Structures are given as C-alpha cells and as structure tokens.
C-alpha cells in the first residue's frame, strides 16, 4: 500500500512520525504497549526507592532521593502524555496495569533491603535504563522521542547520584562495604535481565527495529552495559558476583554469565510473590484515591457551571 510505503520511507529517512500522521495499526499498538509499559515502570519504580525515603541517613540524602522519586513520577507523566497522543487515556492504561493486562519492568519486583540498595538501584538499574533509553531519543515517533530526550537528561543525573552513594559505602566502614557488596550481589543479575531475553528468544524485535521503535538488540545493549559497569565496580573495590566474568580481547568486551531466565519469566508472569506488594500498593493508591479524584472533578464541574451561568 502506498500509505504504508510512504510511512516506512519517512521512518527510514529519520523523519519523525507525528500523532496526526498515518501509521500502521501494528506500529500504534506496539508503541502503546512499549510506552505504556515504560510509563508504568516509572510509576511502580517509585516504590522500591520510596521505601527508603523515610529512612534516608541524612537530610541531604533524603532530599536527593525524594527529588529523584519525584522525577520518576514526572517521567511517568511525560510518557503517559506521549501514549495519550495515540488515542488511549491515562486512566485506561492505569486500569490495565492494575488488572495485570499491561506489565512494568520486572526489575521492580526485586526489593530494596538496605540503604546500599538505593545506591545500587541508581548505579545499576538507572544505568541499564539509560542504556536502553539513550538510543530511543532517536525513535521514529515524535512525542515518544521528545519524552525520551527530557528523561535521559535527568536519568544520567540519577545514575551519578546512585554511584555516589555506592562510593561512600564502598569507601566507608567494614559494615558499609559489606552492605554495598551485598547490594551488588542481589542487583547484578536482575539488572542484566532488564535488557530482555537474548535476541534469539525475543519476539517483536525485528519489526520493531524496522519501525525504529527499537534501535539496538538486547544482547548489544547488555554487552555495552557489562563493559561499562565492570570497571566501575573495580574502581569501587567491589566484586561482580560472576566467577566466569573475563575480558575477551578478541571481541573487545567481557564474557559474562547469563542471568537465570527461568526466574525472569517466573517473576515477569507474577509468580514471584514480591510483585503482589507492588500491585497492591498501586491498587490501594488508586482505589483509596477515587473519592479525591471524584471530589475534585465535581468541584471543577460546579465552578465551570457557575462561570458559564455568570457569563
């Protein structure tokens, strides 16, 4: 079809697709799924870090963490807005999250057990997220691309803050070092999982890459992440929990062990019990907040009505 051909030509020529432009149904559907999932991840991702706001060790750390979690809520907003340009509302997407029809990144089904985990989340989880997001600044869909540009600017700041926490811990007392190493042990493999299963086992990949919704393969990004992170761990004096990790001169990157993909799929499907806490927290926020949303809406209606009457 000519429309489809014209669309693909624009994509190939790096011309942004805008909301009013014609686009294939599959493109739209895939984008809604991907942007929605990303937005949900920002929202659910508030929880593991929010868990430590009331326990942050200094006033400054508390403010930095609070500001970071606030940024995540902001990122959620940008992304919901981007998805809304595709004809789906924020409330619809929220309902789909709560009913389990839409997913969020399964990294957030891992708990933050110590303060060092807050460092590890910033360093590793935000690090992996940026690795995924930077190329998406060049994604074909305009609103999505512009949201990613804003987000990436803030994310790299977050990653530096996370690394800074790890640094303080790794160069601190024995107990702090142990805490930092423990955090790395628990977050290493879940971080590797963030890039998704190996491309061989990944559905949708090829079409998404043609549409420039996906820019790099999962394995490319994972390799890049490992290559970037290993020297950072070394600088901290921490040990990556992978005995097989080794520099491979030939490929110019590290060889490393795959995460346990059975666990990944288990946790993704919600079999891991921790995701119950996350969804319950979001459900409770949504249900408990219904009267507030309705109350404020009703008041706005009244005001609008009386304004119209006065005119």
């Amino acid at each position, binding site marked *: 079809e000519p429309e489809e051909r014209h669309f693909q030509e624009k994509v190939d020529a790096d011309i942004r697709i805008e909301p009013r432009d014609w686009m294939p149904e599959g493109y739209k559907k895939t984008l809604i799924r991907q942007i929605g999932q990303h937005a949900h991840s920002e*929202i659910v991702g*508030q*929880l593991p870090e*929010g868990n430590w*706001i*009331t*326990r*942050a*060790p*200094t*006033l*400054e*750390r*508390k*403010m930095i963490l*609070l*500001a970071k*979690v*606030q940024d995540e*809520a*902001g990122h*959620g*907003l940008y992304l*919901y807005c981007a998805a809304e340009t595709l004809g789906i509302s*924020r409330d619809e997407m929220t309902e789909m999250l709560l009913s389990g029809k839409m997913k969020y990144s399964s990294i957030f089904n891992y708990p933050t057990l110590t*303060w060092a985990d807050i460092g590890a989340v910033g360093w590793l989880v935000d690090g992996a997220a940026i690795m995924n997001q930077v190329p998406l600044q060049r994604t074909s869909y305009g609103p999505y691309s512009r949201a990613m540009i804003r987000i990436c600017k803030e994310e790299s700041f977050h990653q530096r803050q996370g690394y800074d*926490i790890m640094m*303080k811990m790794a160069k*601190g*007392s024995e*107990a*702090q070092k142990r805490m930092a190493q423990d955090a790395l042990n628990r977050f290493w493999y879940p971080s590797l999982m963030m890039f998704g299963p190996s491309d061989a086992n990944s559905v949708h990949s090829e079409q998404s890459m043609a549409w420039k919704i996906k820019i790099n393969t999962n394995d490319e990004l994972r390799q890049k992440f490992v290559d970037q992170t290993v020297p950072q761990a070394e600088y901290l004096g921490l040990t990556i929990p992978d005995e097989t990790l080794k520099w491979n001169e030939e490929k110019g990157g590290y060889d490393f062990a795959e995460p346990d993909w059975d666990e990944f799929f288990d946790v993704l499907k919600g079999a891991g019990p921790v995701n119950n806490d996350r969804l319950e*927290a979001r459900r*409770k*926020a*949504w249900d*408990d*907040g*219904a*009267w*507030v*949303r*309705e*109350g*404020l*809406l*009703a*008041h*706005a209606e*009244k005001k609008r009505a009386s304004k119209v009457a006065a005119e």
Partner: protein
Amino acid sequence: MTQKSDPKFEALLRLGDNALILGHRVSEWCGHAPVLEEDIALANTALDLLGQTSLWLEYAGEVEGKGRSADDIAFLRDAWDFRNVLLVELPNGDFGQTIMRQYLFDVFNRLNLEAMKTSTDTRIAEIAEKAAKEAAYHVERSEGTVIGLGDGTEESHRRIQDALNILWPYAQELFITDEVDEEMAKAGVIPDPKSLQDAWNAEVRGALAEATLEVPEAHFGHRGSGKDGRMHTEHLGHILTQMQWLQRAYPGQEW
C-alpha cells in the same frame, strides 16, 4: 524540670522540628497519592519543608555552640527532645486528613514566616524570606484542595469534614504561648504565636466556609505541649525509629 537552654535555640528547634516531622509525614505519600499530579505536589511540599528544616536546625546548632550539625540534631535526639507540635506528628490518615493538616499548618507557617522577615536576627530574617515564598505557594495549593474536596461530592465533603473535626483541637496548640515565645517576641526575633491567631482564624475560617465546612467546638486539652516537650503523641516515637534507623544502627559513618 529539664535544664533550661537558650530560648533562641529552643525557638529554632520548634521551627526546625515542625518542618522536619511534617516533611517526614508528607514524604510517606511518595508513590501512593490519589493521582500522579498530587504525588508530585506532595513530594514538592516535603522537599521544601526538609529544606527549611536544614536551615533552621543548622542555625540551631550554631546558636547552641556545641558543634552539632543539622543532621546530628535531626537524627540523634530521642522523642523527649523534640519540640514540634502534635499536629505534625499525626498519621497521614486518608488524603483528606493529610491535606487538611497541611492547610492548617501552612497558613500558620506563612503568617509566622512573613512576620519573621523583619526579625531583628538577620539570619532568621534571611531564612524566613526564602521560606515564606514556599509557604505561600503551599497555602495556595492546600487551600485550593481543601475547598475542592469540601465543595466536591458528598463523600469528599464528609471525609474532609471528618478530618477537620479530628485536627481542629490539635491546630489550637500552634497558638500556645510560653516563656520562650515571650522572650523571642520581646526581642523582636520571632512573633508571639498568639499575635498570629486572629489573622489565622480569619483566613482559615474564611476558606473553610468557602469549602462549606463547619468548624467544630474543640480545644487542646493538655497543659503540656510538644513545644516544650512535655507532651507528644505516641506516633512521634514510631517516626523516629524509621527516620533515625541508619544513624543509630551505624553511628558516626559518612553517607
């Protein structure tokens, strides 16, 4: 009964502890608010309050002259040494209770800070200058939300009225005046809380009327107050177990 300490130190603790404890409570909402925009707004309020905390407690430490930092004061005192009013310790309750508590405090805070802009203590005047702007913005937001919920649906009206009934007597504690207040007022450092009461009443009752809410008849029954540490709710201790956990479990570390 407790050793007398410098009234300016005491007064600064009151300012800092109110901001610290309320900031803590508000930050508990993070990720749990009724709507994303509120999540962001509440985080913003908490951030402002924690920023004010730092300024007040840092100065308190300097006035005390024992080398304590704002963090030392925030994280290494037990409940009895806190000087905040009971209002700010109360659990968040539902969103209505949180926002009503915020509003009742915000108006007091703004009036107090506005008056402190002309403090004879220039450091206090400087802090107040900055903080008053934030407080004015807080009032704008919390007042709007209280009015919206009061004049919203039947349920939102009932809930915010319940919140007012619970919180009103606690709010009266804000205007208890003691020797510390008198001394600070006499020296032109910080206004006597009683001097703010009429303005507070006029403004708050006006907004509550617009919100179609009824102000209950209730007063603060205890003689001791959080301001002098003779009274607190049992909630404060539980806040501290969380807030101070890391500093207590791993004393003297860098974070």
